[in-house]
C-alpha cells in the first residue's frame, strides 16, 4: 500500500508538471503566436483550457498520495502553510506555493465574468510564478529528476517555456505601439 501511494505520488507529480508546462506554453503562445506553426489560435486555446483542467486532478492526486503516504510525513497543514515540513522544507514549500497559486488562477478563470479584465489578468499572471515554483519544486524535491534522462527532459521543457516566455515578453512590448497605431482614426 505504501509503495502504491509512493508510485502514484511520483507519477502524478511528474504528469502534473507536464500538464502545467503545456498549459503555460499554450497560454503564452496565444498572444505571441509561438505555436502558429502548429495550429491556429483556436486550437492553441483549446489546448490551454484542456491542460489547465488536466493539471487539477493530477495535482490533487499528487497531494492526496503524499498525505496518505506515512513515509513522506506531509500533513494537511503543509497544504496551507508552506515551509513547515521537517525536511526539505524549502523544496516542498515551493510545491505548496505553486499549488495554491495555480488554484487561485483556476478559480479566477471560472469567476472571470465577475472580474474586471485587469484584475483577472493580474491574477492570471501569477501562473508564471506558480510555474517557476512548481519547476523548482520538481527539481529540488523530485525523486526522479535526479535520473539523467528525466532531468534532461525537464530542462528541455523548462527551456521551451523560457523561449516562449521571452517571445511573449518581446511581443508584449511591441503590442502597445501597435494598438496605438490601430487606434488612430
Amino acid at each position, binding site marked *: 500500500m505504501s509503495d502504491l501511494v509512493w*508510485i502514484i505520488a*511520483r507519477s*502524478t507529480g511528474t*504528469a502534473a508538471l507536464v500538464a502545467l508546462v503545456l498549459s503555460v506554453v499554450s497560454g503564452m503562445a496565444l498572444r505571441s503566436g509561438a505555436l502558429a*506553426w502548429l495550429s491556429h489560435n483556436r486550437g492553441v486555446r*483549446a489546448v490551454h483550457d484542456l491542460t489547465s483542467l488536466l493539471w487539477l486532478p493530477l495535482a490533487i492526486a499528487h497531494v492526496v498520495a503524499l498525505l496518505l503516504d506515512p513515509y513522506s510525513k506531509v500533513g494537511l497543514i503543509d497544504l496551507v502553510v508552506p515551509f513547515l515540513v521537517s525536511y526539505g522544507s524549502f523544496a516542498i514549500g515551493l510545491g505548496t506555493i505553486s499549488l495554491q497559486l495555480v488554484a487561485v488562477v483556476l478559480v479566477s478563470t471560472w469567476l472571470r465574468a465577475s472580474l474586471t479584465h485587469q484584475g483577472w489578468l493580474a491574477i492570471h499572471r501569477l501562473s508564471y510564478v506558480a510555474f517557476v515554483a512548481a519547476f523548482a519544486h520538481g527539481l*529540488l524535491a523530485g525523486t526522479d529528476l535526479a*535520473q539523467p534522462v528525466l532531468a534532461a527532459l525537464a530542462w528541455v521543457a523548462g527551456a521551451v517555456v523560457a523561449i516562449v516566455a521571452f517571445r511573449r515578453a518581446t511581443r508584449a512590448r511591441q503590442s502597445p505601439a501597435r494598438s496605438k*497605431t490601430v487606434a488612430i482614426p
Partner: protein
Amino acid sequence: MRSRAAGAGLERMPAPKRSPLVTSVTALRGMAAGITMLSLAGMTAYAGGHLHNPTAPLQPAAAATSAPARSTTTSSTGRLQLTRTVPTTTSTRAITSTHHS
C-alpha cells in the same frame, strides 16, 4: 473596404504564409491529453520498477527517528534505503550501563 482601412491609417496585416500543421482542434486536444497521459503512464511504469532511489534529493528525517523501536535491524522503506541506527544506540547504552554497574 480596403480603401476605408487605408484611409483610417490601418496597416494591412500580412497574410499567413503557411497553414498550421494541425488544423483539427480535437486532434490537438488529443495530442495534449496523450502527452500528459503518456508521461503519467511512463512515470508509473518507471517508478514501479525503481522504488529504490539512492540519489533522491529528500529524505524524511522523521522516518528515521519516529519509529526506531519497531525495527532492530537495517530496514529499507523501499525508496531511499535508509538504515535505522537508533536501536543500536539504545542497546549500546544498555550494555554500557551494565558494564559500569
